[in-house]
Protein backbone atom coordinates (compact mmCIF):
# COMPACT_ATOMS: atom_id res chain seq x y z
CA UNK A 1 0.00 0.00 0.00
CA UNK A 2 2.70 2.43 1.03
CA UNK A 3 4.55 1.43 -2.08
CA UNK A 4 1.54 2.34 -4.18
CA UNK A 5 0.99 5.68 -2.51
CA UNK A 6 4.62 6.60 -3.00
CA UNK A 7 4.49 5.64 -6.63
CA UNK A 8 1.41 7.73 -7.39
CA UNK A 9 2.74 11.29 -7.52
CA UNK A 10 5.81 10.00 -9.26
CA UNK A 11 3.77 8.42 -12.00
CA UNK A 12 1.60 11.48 -12.31
CA UNK A 13 4.64 13.57 -12.95
CA UNK A 14 5.85 11.22 -15.65
CA UNK A 15 2.55 11.58 -17.49
CA UNK A 16 2.42 15.31 -16.94
CA UNK A 17 5.79 15.79 -18.50
CA UNK A 18 4.40 14.38 -21.70
CA UNK A 19 1.22 16.40 -21.67
CA UNK A 20 -1.28 17.79 -19.23
CA UNK A 21 -4.12 17.25 -21.65
CA UNK A 22 -6.30 14.15 -21.38
CA UNK A 23 -7.60 11.81 -24.02
CA UNK A 24 -4.44 10.99 -25.92
CA UNK A 25 -4.84 7.23 -25.87
CA UNK A 26 -8.56 7.24 -26.46
CA UNK A 27 -8.61 9.68 -29.37
CA UNK A 28 -5.54 8.29 -31.09
CA UNK A 29 -6.75 4.74 -30.63
CA UNK A 30 -10.17 5.47 -32.08
CA UNK A 31 -8.72 7.49 -34.98
CA UNK A 32 -6.24 4.82 -35.93
CA UNK A 33 -8.89 2.10 -35.64
CA UNK A 34 -11.34 4.01 -37.83
CA UNK A 35 -8.64 4.96 -40.33
CA UNK A 36 -7.67 1.32 -40.58
CA UNK A 37 -11.20 0.00 -40.97
CA UNK A 38 -12.48 2.53 -43.48
CA UNK A 39 -9.37 3.36 -45.51
CA UNK A 40 -6.34 1.16 -44.95
CA UNK A 41 -7.87 -2.32 -44.78
CA UNK A 42 -9.95 -1.77 -47.94
CA UNK A 43 -7.04 -0.25 -49.82
CA UNK A 44 -4.72 -3.08 -48.83
CA UNK A 45 -7.32 -5.56 -50.06
CA UNK A 46 -7.09 -3.80 -53.41
CA UNK A 47 -3.30 -3.77 -53.56
CA UNK A 48 -3.02 -7.39 -52.43
CA UNK A 49 -5.56 -8.46 -55.01
CA UNK A 50 -3.55 -6.72 -57.73
CA UNK A 51 -0.35 -8.31 -56.39
CA UNK A 52 -1.78 -11.81 -56.72
CA UNK A 53 -2.61 -11.31 -60.38
CA UNK A 54 -0.42 -13.37 -62.65
CA UNK A 55 2.21 -11.00 -64.17
CA UNK A 56 1.47 -12.12 -67.71
CA UNK A 57 -2.24 -11.39 -67.21
CA UNK A 58 -1.40 -8.09 -65.55
CA UNK A 59 0.67 -7.05 -68.54
CA UNK A 60 -2.05 -8.24 -70.91
CA UNK A 61 -4.64 -6.15 -69.04
CA UNK A 62 -2.54 -3.02 -68.77
CA UNK A 63 -1.20 -3.18 -72.32
CA UNK A 64 -4.51 -4.07 -73.97
CA UNK A 65 -5.28 -1.41 -76.59
CA UNK A 66 -8.58 -0.62 -74.89
CA UNK A 67 -6.75 0.04 -71.60
CA UNK A 68 -4.01 2.18 -73.13
CA UNK A 69 -6.65 4.12 -75.02
CA UNK A 70 -8.60 4.70 -71.77
CA UNK A 71 -5.43 5.94 -70.08
CA UNK A 72 -4.77 8.24 -73.03
CA UNK A 73 -8.29 9.66 -72.84
CA UNK A 74 -8.22 10.05 -69.04
CA UNK A 75 -4.81 11.67 -68.84
CA UNK A 76 -5.12 13.66 -72.07
CA UNK A 77 -8.51 15.13 -71.21
CA UNK A 78 -7.43 15.80 -67.62
CA UNK A 79 -4.27 17.59 -68.75
CA UNK A 80 -6.19 19.69 -71.25
CA UNK A 81 -8.84 20.49 -68.63
CA UNK A 82 -6.21 21.35 -66.01
CA UNK A 83 -4.47 23.71 -68.44
CA UNK A 84 -7.75 25.41 -69.36
CA UNK A 85 -8.74 25.66 -65.69
CA UNK A 86 -5.38 27.24 -64.95
CA UNK A 87 -5.91 30.06 -67.44
CA UNK A 88 -9.55 30.68 -66.61
CA UNK A 89 -9.01 30.21 -62.90
CA UNK A 90 -6.23 32.78 -62.89
CA UNK A 91 -8.46 35.37 -64.58
CA UNK A 92 -11.39 34.68 -62.24
CA UNK A 93 -9.26 34.69 -59.10
CA UNK A 94 -7.55 37.92 -60.18
CA UNK A 95 -10.84 39.71 -60.87
CA UNK A 96 -12.48 38.43 -57.69
CA UNK A 97 -9.64 39.50 -55.44
CA UNK A 98 -8.69 42.77 -57.16
CA UNK A 99 -11.65 44.53 -58.70
CA UNK A 100 -14.84 45.66 -57.02
CA UNK A 101 -17.68 45.13 -59.48
CA UNK A 102 -21.42 44.47 -59.28
CA UNK A 103 -22.25 40.87 -58.46
CA UNK A 104 -18.79 40.10 -57.17
CA UNK A 105 -20.04 38.31 -54.06
CA UNK A 106 -22.48 36.17 -56.00
CA UNK A 107 -19.80 35.22 -58.52
CA UNK A 108 -17.48 34.41 -55.65
CA UNK A 109 -20.03 32.19 -53.91
CA UNK A 110 -20.83 30.39 -57.18
CA UNK A 111 -17.19 29.34 -57.64
CA UNK A 112 -17.75 26.59 -55.06
CA UNK A 113 -20.75 25.17 -56.91
CA UNK A 114 -18.80 22.29 -58.51
CA UNK A 115 -17.63 21.23 -55.03
CA UNK A 116 -21.20 21.08 -53.77
CA UNK A 117 -23.10 19.83 -56.82
CA UNK A 118 -23.38 16.03 -57.00
CA UNK A 119 -21.27 14.74 -59.87
CA UNK A 120 -24.18 12.82 -61.41
CA UNK A 121 -26.17 16.06 -61.63
CA UNK A 122 -23.22 17.81 -63.23
CA UNK A 123 -22.93 14.91 -65.65
CA UNK A 124 -26.49 14.98 -66.96
CA UNK A 125 -26.46 18.78 -66.99
CA UNK A 126 -23.39 19.00 -69.20
CA UNK A 127 -24.74 16.28 -71.45
CA UNK A 128 -27.92 18.28 -71.88
CA UNK A 129 -26.02 21.53 -72.48
CA UNK A 130 -23.65 20.00 -75.02
CA UNK A 131 -26.06 17.69 -76.87
CA UNK A 132 -26.95 18.69 -80.43
CA UNK A 133 -30.18 20.36 -79.26
CA UNK A 134 -28.68 21.91 -76.10
CA UNK A 135 -27.85 25.52 -75.30
CA UNK A 136 -24.17 25.10 -76.12
CA UNK A 137 -24.52 22.12 -78.42
CA UNK A 138 -26.56 23.90 -81.07
CA UNK A 139 -24.13 26.82 -81.67
CA UNK A 140 -21.25 24.37 -81.53
CA UNK A 141 -22.95 22.14 -84.09
CA UNK A 142 -23.32 25.16 -86.37
CA UNK A 143 -19.55 25.53 -86.13
CA UNK A 144 -19.16 21.85 -86.98
CA UNK A 145 -18.11 20.81 -83.47
CA UNK A 146 -19.83 17.96 -81.69
CA UNK A 147 -19.91 18.55 -77.94
CA UNK A 148 -21.51 15.59 -76.21
CA UNK A 149 -20.06 12.09 -76.58
CA UNK A 150 -16.67 13.40 -77.75
CA UNK A 151 -13.39 14.10 -75.96
CA UNK A 152 -14.29 17.81 -76.20
CA UNK A 153 -17.33 17.21 -74.01
CA UNK A 154 -15.20 15.32 -71.50
CA UNK A 155 -12.73 18.20 -71.31
CA UNK A 156 -15.52 20.77 -70.78
CA UNK A 157 -17.05 18.71 -67.95
CA UNK A 158 -13.61 18.33 -66.36
CA UNK A 159 -12.98 22.09 -66.54
CA UNK A 160 -16.19 22.54 -64.56
CA UNK A 161 -14.84 20.11 -61.96
CA UNK A 162 -11.34 21.59 -61.82
CA UNK A 163 -11.99 25.33 -61.96
CA UNK A 164 -12.72 25.87 -58.22
CA UNK A 165 -9.51 24.08 -57.21
CA UNK A 166 -7.47 26.60 -59.18
CA UNK A 167 -9.43 29.68 -58.11
CA UNK A 168 -9.46 28.71 -54.43
CA UNK A 169 -5.73 28.00 -54.45
CA UNK A 170 -4.70 31.34 -55.97
CA UNK A 171 -7.21 33.62 -54.27
CA UNK A 172 -5.74 33.62 -50.75
CA UNK A 173 -2.25 34.29 -52.12
CA UNK A 174 -3.45 37.18 -54.25
CA UNK A 175 -5.30 38.67 -51.29
CA UNK A 176 -2.46 38.34 -48.83
CA UNK A 177 0.06 39.88 -51.21
CA UNK A 178 1.72 42.87 -49.60
CA UNK A 179 0.68 46.01 -51.52
CA UNK A 180 3.92 47.72 -50.60
CA UNK A 181 5.93 45.33 -52.72
CA UNK A 182 3.94 46.34 -55.77
CA UNK A 183 4.23 49.99 -54.83
CA UNK A 184 7.97 49.63 -54.52
CA UNK A 185 8.19 48.02 -57.93
CA UNK A 186 6.03 50.77 -59.45
CA UNK A 187 8.04 53.53 -57.78
CA UNK A 188 11.18 52.01 -59.23
CA UNK A 189 9.69 52.49 -62.67
CA UNK A 190 8.11 49.14 -63.48
CA UNK A 191 4.94 49.23 -65.56
CA UNK A 192 1.91 47.09 -64.62
CA UNK A 193 2.91 44.20 -66.84
CA UNK A 194 6.42 44.15 -65.41
CA UNK A 195 5.00 44.23 -61.88
CA UNK A 196 2.82 41.27 -62.74
CA UNK A 197 5.58 39.33 -64.47
CA UNK A 198 8.34 39.98 -61.95
CA UNK A 199 6.56 40.52 -58.64
CA UNK A 200 3.11 38.94 -58.60
CA UNK A 201 3.64 35.93 -60.84
CA UNK A 202 6.49 34.42 -58.77
CA UNK A 203 4.26 34.72 -55.70
CA UNK A 204 1.23 32.98 -57.15
CA UNK A 205 3.04 30.37 -59.24
CA UNK A 206 3.36 27.74 -56.46
CA UNK A 207 -0.31 28.13 -55.50
CA UNK A 208 -1.36 27.93 -59.14
CA UNK A 209 0.69 24.78 -59.57
CA UNK A 210 -0.83 23.21 -56.46
CA UNK A 211 -4.33 24.06 -57.66
CA UNK A 212 -3.71 22.71 -61.13
CA UNK A 213 -2.25 19.50 -59.70
CA UNK A 214 -5.33 19.01 -57.53
CA UNK A 215 -7.62 19.73 -60.48
CA UNK A 216 -5.68 17.22 -62.56
CA UNK A 217 -5.78 14.54 -59.85
CA UNK A 218 -9.50 15.01 -59.39
CA UNK A 219 -10.10 14.94 -63.15
CA UNK A 220 -8.20 11.69 -63.67
CA UNK A 221 -10.40 9.90 -61.17
CA UNK A 222 -13.64 11.66 -62.06
CA UNK A 223 -16.56 9.39 -62.77
CA UNK A 224 -20.00 10.96 -62.38
CA UNK A 225 -19.45 14.14 -64.38
CA UNK A 226 -17.81 12.26 -67.22
CA UNK A 227 -19.80 9.04 -67.49
CA UNK A 228 -22.83 10.70 -69.10
CA UNK A 229 -21.18 13.28 -71.33
CA UNK A 230 -18.52 10.94 -72.72
CA UNK A 231 -20.89 8.29 -74.06
CA UNK A 232 -18.21 5.76 -73.02
CA UNK A 233 -17.23 4.74 -76.52
CA UNK A 234 -14.35 2.24 -76.25
CA UNK A 235 -11.14 3.48 -77.91
CA UNK A 236 -12.60 7.00 -78.18
CA UNK A 237 -14.11 8.48 -75.05
CA UNK A 238 -13.89 5.66 -72.53
CA UNK A 239 -12.01 6.72 -69.36
CA UNK A 240 -10.11 4.58 -66.88
CA UNK A 241 -12.69 4.84 -64.04
CA UNK A 242 -15.41 3.70 -66.43
CA UNK A 243 -13.25 0.82 -67.65
CA UNK A 244 -12.74 -0.27 -64.03
CA UNK A 245 -16.50 -0.31 -63.48
CA UNK A 246 -16.99 -2.27 -66.71
CA UNK A 247 -14.46 -4.87 -65.58
CA UNK A 248 -16.19 -5.15 -62.20
CA UNK A 249 -19.53 -5.70 -63.89
CA UNK A 250 -17.95 -8.46 -65.98
CA UNK A 251 -16.65 -10.03 -62.71
CA UNK A 252 -13.08 -9.45 -63.91
CA UNK A 253 -11.96 -8.54 -60.39
CA UNK A 254 -8.27 -9.09 -61.16
CA UNK A 255 -8.35 -6.72 -64.13
CA UNK A 256 -10.31 -4.10 -62.19
CA UNK A 257 -7.89 -4.38 -59.26
CA UNK A 258 -4.88 -4.00 -61.56
CA UNK A 259 -6.29 -0.84 -63.16
CA UNK A 260 -7.42 0.59 -59.83
CA UNK A 261 -4.00 0.00 -58.26
CA UNK A 262 -2.33 1.78 -61.15
CA UNK A 263 -4.61 4.76 -60.59
CA UNK A 264 -3.98 4.61 -56.86
CA UNK A 265 -0.27 4.78 -57.60
CA UNK A 266 -0.82 7.90 -59.69
CA UNK A 267 -2.80 9.52 -56.86
CA UNK A 268 -0.08 8.74 -54.35
CA UNK A 269 2.51 10.18 -56.69
CA UNK A 270 0.48 13.39 -56.99
CA UNK A 271 0.25 13.65 -53.19
CA UNK A 272 3.98 13.07 -52.84
CA UNK A 273 4.85 15.66 -55.47
CA UNK A 274 2.51 18.18 -53.84
CA UNK A 275 3.95 17.51 -50.39
CA UNK A 276 7.49 17.80 -51.67
CA UNK A 277 6.63 21.00 -53.51
CA UNK A 278 5.07 22.55 -50.43
CA UNK A 279 7.95 21.62 -48.17
CA UNK A 280 10.33 23.09 -50.75
CA UNK A 281 8.46 26.36 -51.04
CA UNK A 282 8.13 26.56 -47.26
CA UNK A 283 11.91 26.15 -47.03
CA UNK A 284 12.49 28.77 -49.66
CA UNK A 285 10.20 31.19 -47.82
CA UNK A 286 12.18 30.73 -44.64
Amino acid at each position, binding site marked *: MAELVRSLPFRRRAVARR*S*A*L*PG*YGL*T*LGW*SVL*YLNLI*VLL*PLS*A*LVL*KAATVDPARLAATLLHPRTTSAFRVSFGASLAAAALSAG*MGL*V*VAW*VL*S*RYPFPGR*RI*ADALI*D*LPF*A*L*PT*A*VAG*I*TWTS*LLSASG*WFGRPLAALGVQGAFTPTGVVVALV*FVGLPFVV*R*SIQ*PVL*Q*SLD*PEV*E*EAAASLGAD*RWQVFRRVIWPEIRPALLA*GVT*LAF*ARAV*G*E*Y*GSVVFVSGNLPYRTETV*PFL*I*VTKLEEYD*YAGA*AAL*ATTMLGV*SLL*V*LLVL*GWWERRSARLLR
Partner: protein
Amino acid sequence: MPVCCGRRWRMHEAPRLLPVRTDPPVVRGILIGAAWGIVALFLVAPLLVVFTEALREGWQRYFAAIREPEALQALRLTLLITGVVVPLNAAFGLAAAWAIGRFQFRGKGLVTALIDLPFTVSPVIGGIVFVLLFGRAGWFGPWLQEHGIRILFAPPGMILATAFVTFPFVVRELIPLLEAQGREEEEAAVVLGASGWQVFRRVTLPAIRWGLLYGLVMCTARAMGEFGAVSVVSGHIRGQTNTLTLYVELLYNSYRTAPAFAVASLLTLLSLLTLVGTHVLEIRGLRRFEP
Protein backbone atom coordinates in the same frame (compact mmCIF):
# COMPACT_ATOMS: atom_id res chain seq x y z
CA MET B 1 -0.72 19.90 -47.03
CA PRO B 2 -2.71 20.49 -50.18
CA VAL B 3 -5.66 22.81 -50.03
CA CYS B 4 -8.64 20.79 -50.98
CA CYS B 5 -12.18 21.78 -50.64
CA GLY B 6 -11.96 24.39 -47.96
CA ARG B 7 -11.81 28.11 -48.52
CA ARG B 8 -8.77 29.69 -47.11
CA TRP B 9 -9.40 33.39 -47.15
CA ARG B 10 -11.97 35.79 -45.88
CA MET B 11 -14.49 37.11 -48.32
CA HIS B 12 -15.92 40.04 -46.39
CA GLU B 13 -12.67 41.90 -46.67
CA ALA B 14 -13.07 44.09 -49.73
CA PRO B 15 -10.00 44.31 -51.94
CA ARG B 16 -7.79 47.20 -50.99
CA LEU B 17 -7.24 49.34 -54.04
CA LEU B 18 -4.32 51.68 -54.10
CA PRO B 19 -3.79 53.96 -57.08
CA VAL B 20 -0.60 52.18 -58.02
CA ARG B 21 -2.31 48.78 -57.90
CA THR B 22 -5.17 49.69 -60.21
CA ASP B 23 -4.87 48.39 -63.71
CA PRO B 24 -5.82 50.47 -66.77
CA PRO B 25 -9.64 50.64 -67.20
CA VAL B 26 -9.44 48.77 -70.52
CA VAL B 27 -7.61 45.85 -68.95
CA ARG B 28 -9.98 45.88 -66.03
CA GLY B 29 -13.03 45.86 -68.29
CA ILE B 30 -11.73 43.00 -70.40
CA LEU B 31 -10.80 40.91 -67.38
CA ILE B 32 -14.11 41.51 -65.57
CA GLY B 33 -15.94 40.64 -68.78
CA ALA B 34 -13.90 37.47 -69.18
CA ALA B 35 -14.49 36.45 -65.58
CA TRP B 36 -18.23 36.99 -65.89
CA GLY B 37 -18.20 35.04 -69.14
CA ILE B 38 -16.46 32.11 -67.47
CA VAL B 39 -18.82 32.22 -64.49
CA ALA B 40 -21.87 32.48 -66.75
CA LEU B 41 -20.86 29.68 -69.11
CA PHE B 42 -19.45 27.26 -66.58
CA LEU B 43 -21.48 27.90 -63.46
CA VAL B 44 -24.70 29.81 -64.15
CA ALA B 45 -25.74 27.95 -67.32
CA PRO B 46 -25.60 24.49 -65.67
CA LEU B 47 -27.67 25.78 -62.76
CA LEU B 48 -30.31 27.24 -65.06
CA VAL B 49 -30.47 24.20 -67.32
CA VAL B 50 -31.23 21.90 -64.37
CA PHE B 51 -34.37 23.84 -63.53
CA THR B 52 -35.55 24.50 -67.09
CA GLU B 53 -35.19 20.82 -67.96
CA ALA B 54 -36.91 19.80 -64.73
CA LEU B 55 -39.91 22.04 -65.42
CA ARG B 56 -40.08 21.30 -69.13
CA GLU B 57 -43.23 19.21 -68.71
CA GLY B 58 -44.84 21.55 -66.21
CA TRP B 59 -45.15 21.82 -62.47
CA GLN B 60 -47.62 18.97 -62.17
CA ARG B 61 -45.26 16.47 -63.79
CA TYR B 62 -42.45 17.90 -61.70
CA PHE B 63 -44.19 17.21 -58.41
CA ALA B 64 -45.40 13.84 -59.66
CA ALA B 65 -41.81 12.89 -60.49
CA ILE B 66 -40.43 13.73 -57.07
CA ARG B 67 -43.35 12.05 -55.27
CA GLU B 68 -43.02 8.71 -57.01
CA PRO B 69 -42.54 5.82 -54.55
CA GLU B 70 -39.16 5.01 -56.07
CA ALA B 71 -38.02 8.59 -55.61
CA LEU B 72 -39.14 8.54 -51.99
CA GLN B 73 -37.35 5.24 -51.41
CA ALA B 74 -34.18 6.75 -52.91
CA LEU B 75 -34.55 9.78 -50.65
CA ARG B 76 -34.97 7.54 -47.59
CA LEU B 77 -31.87 5.53 -48.43
CA THR B 78 -29.85 8.69 -49.08
CA LEU B 79 -30.93 10.09 -45.71
CA LEU B 80 -30.12 6.80 -43.97
CA ILE B 81 -26.62 6.67 -45.45
CA THR B 82 -25.96 10.31 -44.64
CA GLY B 83 -27.38 9.91 -41.14
CA VAL B 84 -24.94 7.11 -40.37
CA VAL B 85 -21.87 8.40 -42.20
CA VAL B 86 -21.79 12.00 -40.99
CA PRO B 87 -21.79 11.21 -37.22
CA LEU B 88 -19.16 8.50 -37.76
CA ASN B 89 -16.89 10.82 -39.71
CA ALA B 90 -17.51 13.63 -37.23
CA ALA B 91 -16.53 11.42 -34.29
CA PHE B 92 -13.41 10.37 -36.15
CA GLY B 93 -12.69 13.95 -37.16
CA LEU B 94 -12.87 15.25 -33.60
CA ALA B 95 -10.79 12.40 -32.18
CA ALA B 96 -8.14 12.53 -34.90
CA ALA B 97 -7.90 16.33 -34.80
CA TRP B 98 -7.43 16.20 -31.02
CA ALA B 99 -4.76 13.53 -31.22
CA ILE B 100 -2.93 15.21 -34.12
CA GLY B 101 -3.39 18.81 -33.03
CA ARG B 102 -2.53 18.34 -29.37
CA PHE B 103 0.06 15.58 -29.10
CA GLN B 104 3.34 14.53 -30.61
CA PHE B 105 3.70 10.93 -31.63
CA ARG B 106 5.64 8.85 -34.06
CA GLY B 107 4.00 8.39 -37.43
CA LYS B 108 2.00 11.61 -37.14
CA GLY B 109 3.03 12.75 -40.60
CA LEU B 110 1.97 9.41 -42.03
CA VAL B 111 -1.45 9.53 -40.36
CA THR B 112 -1.99 13.08 -41.61
CA ALA B 113 -1.02 12.09 -45.14
CA LEU B 114 -3.29 9.04 -45.08
CA ILE B 115 -6.24 11.18 -44.03
CA ASP B 116 -5.93 13.11 -47.29
CA LEU B 117 -5.84 9.98 -49.40
CA PRO B 118 -9.59 9.60 -50.10
CA PHE B 119 -9.61 13.12 -51.58
CA THR B 120 -7.16 12.21 -54.27
CA VAL B 121 -8.30 8.71 -55.21
CA SER B 122 -11.09 8.13 -57.67
CA PRO B 123 -14.51 7.54 -56.11
CA VAL B 124 -14.62 4.37 -58.18
CA ILE B 125 -11.71 3.08 -56.11
CA GLY B 126 -13.73 3.88 -52.98
CA GLY B 127 -16.27 1.40 -54.28
CA ILE B 128 -14.10 -1.33 -55.71
CA VAL B 129 -12.15 -1.82 -52.48
CA PHE B 130 -15.34 -2.92 -50.71
CA VAL B 131 -16.29 -5.20 -53.59
CA LEU B 132 -12.90 -6.88 -53.17
CA LEU B 133 -13.44 -7.21 -49.41
CA PHE B 134 -17.06 -8.32 -49.29
CA GLY B 135 -17.79 -9.59 -52.81
CA ARG B 136 -18.35 -13.26 -53.55
CA ALA B 137 -14.67 -13.70 -54.42
CA GLY B 138 -13.51 -11.23 -51.76
CA TRP B 139 -11.76 -11.77 -48.42
CA PHE B 140 -14.88 -11.98 -46.30
CA GLY B 141 -17.31 -12.89 -49.07
CA PRO B 142 -17.63 -16.65 -48.44
CA TRP B 143 -17.92 -16.21 -44.67
CA LEU B 144 -20.60 -13.56 -45.03
CA GLN B 145 -22.55 -15.71 -47.45
CA GLU B 146 -22.40 -18.65 -45.07
CA HIS B 147 -23.88 -16.54 -42.31
CA GLY B 148 -26.43 -14.86 -44.52
CA ILE B 149 -25.10 -11.33 -43.96
CA ARG B 150 -25.43 -8.92 -46.86
CA ILE B 151 -23.00 -6.03 -47.02
CA LEU B 152 -22.41 -5.63 -50.72
CA PHE B 153 -25.37 -4.54 -52.87
CA ALA B 154 -27.07 -3.47 -49.64
CA PRO B 155 -27.06 -0.37 -47.40
CA PRO B 156 -24.08 -1.44 -45.22
CA GLY B 157 -21.75 -1.51 -48.21
CA MET B 158 -23.08 1.80 -49.46
CA ILE B 159 -22.51 3.32 -46.03
CA LEU B 160 -18.92 2.07 -46.00
CA ALA B 161 -18.22 3.40 -49.50
CA THR B 162 -19.70 6.79 -48.63
CA ALA B 163 -17.72 6.90 -45.38
CA PHE B 164 -14.54 6.22 -47.36
CA VAL B 165 -15.18 9.02 -49.84
CA THR B 166 -16.30 11.64 -47.29
CA PHE B 167 -13.73 10.58 -44.72
CA PRO B 168 -11.46 13.70 -44.70
CA PHE B 169 -14.01 16.53 -44.66
CA VAL B 170 -14.46 17.12 -40.92
CA VAL B 171 -10.95 16.28 -39.77
CA ARG B 172 -9.32 18.46 -42.44
CA GLU B 173 -11.22 21.49 -41.19
CA LEU B 174 -10.33 20.86 -37.56
CA ILE B 175 -6.61 20.07 -37.62
CA PRO B 176 -5.45 23.53 -38.79
CA LEU B 177 -7.85 25.20 -36.35
CA LEU B 178 -6.61 23.23 -33.38
CA GLU B 179 -2.98 23.68 -34.36
CA ALA B 180 -3.35 27.44 -34.74
CA GLN B 181 -5.25 27.79 -31.50
CA GLY B 182 -2.49 26.31 -29.36
CA ARG B 183 -2.92 24.26 -26.21
CA GLU B 184 -2.35 26.82 -23.47
CA GLU B 185 -6.03 27.47 -22.75
CA GLU B 186 -6.80 23.81 -22.43
CA GLU B 187 -3.80 23.22 -20.22
CA ALA B 188 -4.93 26.06 -18.01
CA ALA B 189 -8.37 24.46 -17.75
CA VAL B 190 -6.81 21.13 -16.77
CA VAL B 191 -4.63 22.79 -14.16
CA LEU B 192 -7.72 24.46 -12.74
CA GLY B 193 -9.25 21.02 -12.31
CA ALA B 194 -11.50 20.59 -15.34
CA SER B 195 -12.27 17.07 -16.44
CA GLY B 196 -11.55 15.96 -19.98
CA TRP B 197 -15.17 16.37 -21.00
CA GLN B 198 -15.35 19.84 -19.41
CA VAL B 199 -12.23 20.95 -21.27
CA PHE B 200 -13.73 19.80 -24.53
CA ARG B 201 -17.17 21.24 -23.84
CA ARG B 202 -16.05 24.61 -22.46
CA VAL B 203 -12.72 25.41 -24.09
CA THR B 204 -12.15 23.41 -27.26
CA LEU B 205 -15.63 23.23 -28.74
CA PRO B 206 -16.39 26.98 -28.61
CA ALA B 207 -13.14 27.65 -30.43
CA ILE B 208 -13.70 25.15 -33.21
CA ARG B 209 -17.47 25.14 -33.58
CA TRP B 210 -17.64 27.09 -36.84
CA GLY B 211 -14.95 24.97 -38.41
CA LEU B 212 -16.71 21.84 -37.17
CA LEU B 213 -20.01 23.03 -38.59
CA TYR B 214 -18.36 23.89 -41.91
CA GLY B 215 -16.86 20.41 -42.10
CA LEU B 216 -20.20 18.83 -41.21
CA VAL B 217 -22.01 20.79 -43.92
CA MET B 218 -19.45 19.81 -46.56
CA CYS B 219 -19.49 16.19 -45.40
CA THR B 220 -23.29 16.06 -45.52
CA ALA B 221 -23.42 17.59 -48.98
CA ARG B 222 -20.88 15.18 -50.33
CA ALA B 223 -22.47 12.16 -48.63
CA MET B 224 -25.86 12.97 -50.13
CA GLY B 225 -24.41 13.60 -53.57
CA GLU B 226 -21.93 10.73 -53.77
CA PHE B 227 -22.27 8.79 -56.98
CA GLY B 228 -19.24 6.84 -58.21
CA ALA B 229 -18.37 4.87 -55.09
CA VAL B 230 -22.00 4.15 -54.22
CA SER B 231 -22.77 3.13 -57.79
CA VAL B 232 -20.10 0.42 -57.68
CA VAL B 233 -21.31 -1.20 -54.44
CA SER B 234 -25.07 -0.68 -54.85
CA GLY B 235 -25.81 -3.41 -57.39
CA HIS B 236 -28.53 -1.12 -58.79
CA ILE B 237 -31.46 -3.06 -57.33
CA ARG B 238 -34.53 -1.03 -58.27
CA GLY B 239 -36.61 0.13 -55.37
CA GLN B 240 -34.01 -1.12 -52.89
CA THR B 241 -30.47 0.16 -53.32
CA ASN B 242 -31.02 3.32 -55.32
CA THR B 243 -29.93 6.57 -53.74
CA LEU B 244 -31.07 9.89 -55.17
CA THR B 245 -28.06 10.18 -57.46
CA LEU B 246 -28.39 6.58 -58.66
CA TYR B 247 -32.09 7.16 -59.25
CA VAL B 248 -31.22 10.20 -61.37
CA GLU B 249 -28.91 8.01 -63.43
CA LEU B 250 -31.58 5.34 -63.81
CA LEU B 251 -34.19 7.84 -64.99
CA TYR B 252 -31.77 9.55 -67.34
CA ASN B 253 -30.59 6.31 -68.91
CA SER B 254 -34.19 5.21 -69.49
CA TYR B 255 -34.77 8.45 -71.43
CA ARG B 256 -37.05 9.96 -68.78
CA THR B 257 -35.13 13.23 -68.95
CA ALA B 258 -37.61 15.58 -67.26
CA PRO B 259 -38.13 13.36 -64.17
CA ALA B 260 -34.36 12.83 -63.99
CA PHE B 261 -33.82 16.59 -63.88
CA ALA B 262 -36.71 16.98 -61.42
CA VAL B 263 -34.92 14.73 -58.93
CA ALA B 264 -31.60 16.35 -59.86
CA SER B 265 -33.11 19.75 -59.08
CA LEU B 266 -33.69 18.61 -55.49
CA LEU B 267 -30.00 17.74 -55.22
CA THR B 268 -29.12 21.06 -56.84
CA LEU B 269 -31.23 22.97 -54.32
CA LEU B 270 -29.43 21.06 -51.62
CA SER B 271 -26.04 22.09 -52.97
CA LEU B 272 -27.17 25.72 -53.23
CA LEU B 273 -28.22 25.51 -49.58
CA THR B 274 -24.76 24.14 -48.82
CA LEU B 275 -23.14 27.08 -50.58
CA VAL B 276 -25.25 29.56 -48.64
CA GLY B 277 -24.59 27.69 -45.40
CA THR B 278 -20.83 27.59 -45.78
CA HIS B 279 -20.81 31.22 -46.86
CA VAL B 280 -22.75 32.27 -43.76
CA LEU B 281 -20.44 30.19 -41.59
CA GLU B 282 -17.49 32.07 -42.96
CA ILE B 283 -19.04 35.45 -42.32
CA ARG B 284 -19.90 34.28 -38.81
CA GLY B 285 -16.27 34.73 -38.00
CA LEU B 286 -14.77 31.46 -39.02
CA ARG B 287 -11.07 32.15 -39.26
CA ARG B 288 -9.16 30.12 -41.79
CA PHE B 289 -5.50 29.53 -41.34
CA GLU B 290 -3.02 28.97 -44.06
CA PRO B 291 -1.90 25.35 -43.85
